[in-house]
């Protein structure tokens, strides 16, 4: 049973989420301030955290970056204002995904499951030499990609783009993060690169409907392993 921690100051919403998510088979704990949430996260180490950005004591972004100082637990941000900037900022601060209010309980649960599925393993190390996302296998050392066992011919930047998403599988990577890491800091305004490369990669992977390489308009991209 997945342990979920919800940090939000709206008592009624906390009750709804507790009832709904417990009915969907999770164990739910709640905190109504940022500080209480951080304490709870430290004591119980939940499997995933749902974090509201508008908290009375600490800004949600601040909670996120403090959390990231010592924990890699997946964080799903609840954004109330619907503005892209805050979401993107939260993702840059280390959040993994976001859900815009209002949301259906199934939708929230689905996001939680994706985050749980791709939860980083606790083993420390220099990072894996190989990443597997569903049928896709990326050999990061030899820079080779295979899909269902057959080689995929990717240009160097296409491979790097895909590898970056694969290393953060399940997490929404903002456009800035991708451009900075794959192309370099001076390319963060070249948003059209992403469209072109995502289009080419999808074509080569046969991912025509964007199920594997998902795009989030005006926010970023993420790689998600399809459910078996």
């Amino acid at each position, binding site marked *: 049973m997945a342990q979920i921690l919800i940090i939000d*100051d709206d008592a009624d919403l906390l009750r*709804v989420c507790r009832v709904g998510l*417990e009915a969907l088979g999770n164990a739910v704990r709640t905190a109504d301030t940022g500080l209480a949430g951080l304490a709870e996260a430290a004591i119980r180490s939940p499997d995933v955290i749902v974090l509201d950005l508008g908290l009375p004591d600490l800004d949600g972004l601040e909670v996120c970056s403090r959390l990231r100082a010592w924990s890699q637990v997946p964080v799903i941000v609840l954004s109330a204002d619907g503005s892209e900037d805050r979401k993107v900022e939260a993702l840059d601060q280390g959040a993994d995904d976001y859900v815009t209010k209002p949301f259906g309980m199934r939708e929230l649960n689905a996001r939680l499951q994706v985050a749980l599925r791709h939860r980083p393993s606790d083993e420390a190390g220099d990072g894996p030499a190989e990443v597997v996302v569903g049928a896709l296998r990326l050999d990061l050392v030899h820079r080779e990609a295979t899909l269902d066992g057959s080689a995929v011919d990717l240009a160097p930047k296409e491979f790097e783009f895909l590898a970056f998403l694969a290393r953060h599988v399940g997490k929404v990577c903002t456009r800035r993060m991708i451009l900075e890491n794959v192309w370099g800091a001076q390319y963060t305004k070249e948003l059209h690169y992403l469209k072109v490369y995502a289009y080419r990669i999808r074509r080569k992977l046969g991912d025509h409907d964007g199920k594997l390489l998902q795009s989030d308009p005006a926010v970023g991209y993420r790689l998600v392993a399809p459910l078996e």
Partner: protein
Amino acid sequence: MRRWLVGLAASLAAIVVLTAAMVPLRSHLSPATTALVLVVPVVVGVVVGGLAAGVCSVVAGFLVYDFFFIPPYLTLWVGAAQNWVALGVYGAVMLLVSQVVARMNSARSEARRQGREIAELFELSRMLVEDRSLDVLLSSVVSTVADVFGARQVVLLLPDDGNLTVAASKGQDLSDNQLRRVLPKAGELTSLGVSPFEHDGLFVIALAAAGRPVGLLVVSSDVVKADRRAPLMLFANHIALAVERVQLRDKALQSRLAEEVARLAKTMVGAVSHDLRAPLTTIKGASSTLADSELDLDAEATRTLVKLIDVQADRLAHLVQNLLDMSRIQAGVLTPRWSVTSVDELLAGALDALDHRGHVITVETRGDLPFVDADEVLISRVLINLLENALRYSPKATPVVVRAAIEGDDRVKVSVIDRGPGVIAERRNEVFELFSRRHDDAGAGLGLTIAKTFVEAHGQHIWVSEAPGGGAMFCFTLATVAPISEEMKLGADSHH
């Protein structure tokens, strides 16, 4: 003209007096002495009347000198050769003296005029740097120019929507004909902006600051003689700078205002969308769980969700009501529908519509309160909003008290008292402003603004103070239908 005549008269009078005094003694006086005495009237003439009066008095003095004091007396006949010399020297010296004195005189009056101009210019620049509105500035500018230069007509034209229009004038206005001649038409060649030009009795100066045209100064040209142009241009430059400064300040003010409006609009959209979204999120979360046929919810969970939907739907309804009230206020259609009612009735309605959230609301009123004149709907909204506010900030399990008492001769005061943190003195006016709310509060801050607007639509007051024993006390007044009788006041006193 007059000054010249006065000078001549003074000089002639001096000649008459001195001659009358000297004639009896002339046999004892040398021609040189009398000549020396006759210098006096010439100097008087030139000092008082200028060069022309001086020259006339030289002629008069010359004739008098010859007639009375050069032998043979009482003829213009000049006898001895040495008398010729005396007469000649007198005439020549006097002409020189009057010239020198006249020049000194005119230099002095020129200096005086320049001093006055500098004083006026100083006065003008002092006025120009004062922070005044453009209208006041312009009218004082034109009257100063008119005063200093003695101009019959001074007109200042400034651009308005791209066209130069008369912004201020002193003396007669420009006729349409003149205006047409002064103003350049589209596609017409004009000397505007290059240098001042004179045209049909008008002297036109283009005002420019930092190379940018600011406006046009038109002065009737009879006063603008060559030597007055420089000071006029100096004035014009000062005016241009001041007008430009005021124009820039007005522009800056306008853009600040626009920014403020945009900021307010943004705050409003942000606050309202937050307030709409928060209850919607709870409702959507609960309803999507209830609607999920695959989930097996127990009765307790179902009841919790249904109850939450109910509460949040009320919250939404309340917010929508507030937004409607707000739009009513902004549309300016807020006229109370007066009716005779009682505070108890108003309170009962408000308490009915309110979600108490587990708080106890204590009502403390006298049974014999006078009837009041009020719009029942509006005052109910005021009460609901004040109570909502009190409930929001009250710690759990503390009561909210509503009190009503007579106030003065013709009013009832209603107070809503909570045991919350209260409102600090500096924020007591602010809390009624649009979108004012505590930083940790989720409400859009419409409620108190609406309450204030509604109360003021009744011509009454609303204010907040500290409740005795801590917390906030919001009070407002209502007008009674009839003046309050003395015995009722006494009753109120004994009540305390």
